[in-house]
């Protein structure tokens, strides 16, 4: 498995209002050594492939057509092996292995579930009106 990393930068010839604001903010903090800032994007793509050479051409066209706009931006595409840095996936099988070994974990999960269920609707209810409010304000700011 490999991971593609795309860095999209504003072209040097194009005025970058965000970079300009960031640079000024940094100067405001008293750090005068920063002469220019550029704000771009970092996009990571996880691929179901093992060889970068087989997908490079396709990804280059995706970078040109979708991830960047060649009129104002440049991009850099790099690949790396997607090593399980967070080690989440290997952790899961070991848990299930434990479950298989000790059936006593079953009542534990059952005991936890009602608690989670009881909490979940509360947060869900609280979250829904908030998101609704946000969407309303977004709608108000029509284009």
């Amino acid at each position, binding site marked *: 498995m490999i991971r593609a990393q795309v860095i999209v930068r504003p072209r040097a010839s194009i*005025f970058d209002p965000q970079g300009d604001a960031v640079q000024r903010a940094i100067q405001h903090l008293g750090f005068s050594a920063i002469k220019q800032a550029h704000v771009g994007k970092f996009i990571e793509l996880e691929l179901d492939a093992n060889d970068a050479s087989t997908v490079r051409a396709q990804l280059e066209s995706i970078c040109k057509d979708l991830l960047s706009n060649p*009129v*104002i931006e440049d991009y850099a595409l790099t690949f790396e092996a997607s090593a399980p840095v967070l080690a989440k996936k290997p952790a899961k099988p070991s848990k299930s292995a434990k479950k298989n070994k000790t059936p006593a974990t079953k009542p534990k999960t059952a005991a936890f579930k009602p608690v989670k269920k009881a909490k979940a609707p509360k947060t869900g209810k609280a979250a829904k009106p908030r998101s609704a409010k946000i969407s309303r304000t*977004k709608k108000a*700011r029509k*284009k």
Partner: protein
Amino acid sequence: MRWAVIQFPGSNCDQDVFHVLQNVLAQETAYVWHKEASLGAADAIVLPGGFSYGDYLRCGAIARFSPIMPAVKKAAAEGKTILGICNGFQILCEAGLLPGVLIRNSGLHFRCETVPVRVEHPASRFTRDYLTGQVLRLPIAHGEGHYVASEATLETLFQHRQVLFTYSDLQGRNSPGANPNGSQRHIAGITNRAGNVLGLMPHPERASEKIVGSDDGLGLFTSILASQGMAPVRAA
């Protein structure tokens, strides 16, 4: 005239355009969902304002790949009238139907106000009901309306009279102070070389009835009708 108003997920000026076309100008108007592949028998297509796909990645960058877009490109190639307002302008640029691109306003602020917009010339299907240098009062509401193109592209746009609208003061003078977003050469609206595709950041559909404060934008729609030999009938 038959009009299609395309609805993208996040479009929010579609109903305003629909109202002006159907209720103010008595036009046969239909919504077309972006997942459709056909525009039916539409003579003119409107890409309305809004925040298609939440403006993720870049404004219009994802909408540009919507299933309806091949039909829009085909209609543009056939010479049909295509009007992109605000987010619609951004989508047309991303789709390559118009040159250049719209980036973050130079002041970083979302500008939501009525601004003076100067008509550059009436020799187009979108401006024939206006006068050269006429100053319109049109609402703008955008965070990314700063028009950017290469110097060569800008020269070509002016040379071929593709710039139809610029930001100006009330006397019709272009100046940095009257430019709300930092657009190069104060550009507010441009057409393609053939003159049948227009993109503009101001909202003519929000200034098409006196009751909403200005009907200066109505002339854009009546111009399109007149160019197709239609009398500008008011439904009233």
